[in-house]
């Protein structure tokens, strides 16, 4: 429609410690620089987690929000009008962790054990999928609902036998207590996706593309300057540089175009969530995923 060439007065993006490229963007001020030309104001808002980013999106407090793919799927399934238009990383931010001298060596050993996880989040989905893979179900283990940081502490103090961990907590316990990541599987992570509010995307497609372009720029910079990227992360999130390096080491920036990979990963995650009654049984998963993953904007920018 004719409105498509309109420009918003202001664009609000979030930045998050789990999205290093957003930190780089903010650090260098590229977004401000870009939109200044059009006289558009830019504001950065910190998201402390996917849940916050989604709350901000829902309340129109931000136009772009960074979340885990599964979180976006959950929100979309409950009716949030958002689209995932870009993949900011394929992080391996979650894995199953146990203490150094534990006798748990594989997922199978978890049977009957206490496992900490935060309900509904990526680590939780990861745990369910890992259990599923190993022929176990959620009922075979005792899942303790703890916030990520608390889960790390509970593991360190042996109150749980294992923990579905999340970075940077995971990197930190790895370094400090020698905790072991006994089960890793990058494909069970649901990617880090950049979401945009549907009505914003519909009104201002050009700006959406521009933001993706800028994210691409940051991605390339991060690939070229891993050490500096880690320093930015360490400084922003006030974590040790070692932890930052460890976290980035597990982050894969190679593919940023949303597509089949993501659809499959989310589909699988969705099924697990449906089994756990976190998503309604009668939700049409395929449709939701299809509506969520929207590669159209990114396709125009990312040619290769």
């Amino acid at each position, binding site marked *: 429609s004719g409105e498509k060439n309109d420009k918003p007065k202001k664009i609000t993006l979030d930045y998050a410690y789990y999205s290093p490229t957003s930190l780089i963007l903010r650090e260098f001020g590229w977004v401000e620089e870009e939109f200044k030309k059009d006289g558009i104001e830019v504001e950065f808002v910190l998201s402390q987690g996917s849940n916050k980013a989604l709350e901000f999106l829902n*309340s129109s407090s931000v136009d772009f929000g960074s979340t885990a793919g599964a*979180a976006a799927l959950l929100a979309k399934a409950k009716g949030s009008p958002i689209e995932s238009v870009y993949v900011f990383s394929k992080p391996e931010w979650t894995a199953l962790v146990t203490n150094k001298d534990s006798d748990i060596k594989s997922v199978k050993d978890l049977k009957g054990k206490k496992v900490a996880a935060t*309900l*509904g989040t990526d680590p939780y989905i990861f745990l369910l999928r890992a259990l599923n893979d190993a022929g176990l179900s959620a009922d075979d283990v005792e899942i303790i*609902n703890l916030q990520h940081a*608390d889960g790390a502490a509970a593991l360190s103090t042996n*109150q749980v036998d294992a923990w579905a961990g999340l970075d940077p907590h995971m990197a930190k316990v790895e370094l400090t207590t020698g905790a072991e990541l006994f089960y890793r599987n990058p494909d069970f992570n649901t990617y880090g996706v950049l979401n945009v509010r549907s009505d914003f995307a519909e009104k201002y497609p050009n700006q959406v593309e521009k933001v993706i372009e800028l994210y691409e720029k940051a991605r390339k910079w991060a690939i070229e300057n891993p050490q500096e990227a880690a320093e930015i992360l360490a400084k922003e999130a006030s974590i040790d540089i070692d932890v930052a390096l460890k976290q980035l080491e597990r982050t894969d920036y190679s593919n940023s175009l949303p597509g089949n990979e993501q659809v499959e990963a989310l589909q699988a995650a969705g099924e697990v969530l449906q089994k756990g009654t976190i998503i309604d049984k009668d939700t049409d998963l395929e449709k939701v995923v299809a509506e969520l993953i929207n590669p159209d904007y990114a396709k125009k920018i990312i040619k290769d």
Partner: protein
Amino acid sequence: MSSKSEPLSQRVQWKVKNRIRFPKKLKVALYGSVVPIFLLVAWQILSMVGVLERHLMPAPTLVLEKIVSMVVDGTLWGHIGVTLLRILIGFSIGVGFAIVIGSIVGYLKKAEHMMDPLIQGFRAIPSLAWVPLFILWMGIGESSKITLIAVGVFFPVYLNIVAGIQGVDRKLIEVGKIYNFTPLQLVRKVILPASLPSFFTGIRSGLGLGWMFVVAAELMGASKGIGYLLVVGQNTYSPDLVLASIVLIAILGKLTDSAIKMIEAKALHWQDSFGKLN
């Protein structure tokens, strides 16, 4: 008082009670529901015309549906029961400690100088900040949950007890002193009864904080409870569950508060105060 007229006058009074009292209670209850009902209706209408979006702020009917569905599948009572039990125990512990420590601090200036500054500092620490510490110290069992609730309850009760004690009329204290009461007797027979009004305010304030702390407490590895429902609702982006648990907390909070208010009215019947006027 002639013994003849007694039975008659008693009978008359009883009748009057029966006639007037019930409608009055009803009237009070009706008065109290005007504003909530108005808010509910407004919310419902706003939802129906689409101002409030369903995925953010589902209509009251949907929230009610959610609650009813939990009633139907029988899970609700479990959640309510667990939370009520935690609050009951945590509340009792918190109030108990507050009475003991508050009495000592209120009574002994030295104890006040020693302990009060620390307690006033701790008082400002939010529930969320306690969570990791409690997990560290006490693990993720019931004890840490109950203790956290007790902590929440403790501070307002403590504050009101100390203030109540320090506000007791010197004239009454002196009466106790004249009878050579020991400090314990003085506290028990004069100071505590005299500070009872303030104590009850503290109790009610504390109960409110108990409810507030329940959510933080049930962040610590709970698998049941209203606070747990709230957290699950937030983690799974289910606004209906979030609102349902908020509504449940509000209702239960109000009910438990009313219970204490009733005890208060009984215990303070001797007060000759403004509140008894109208």
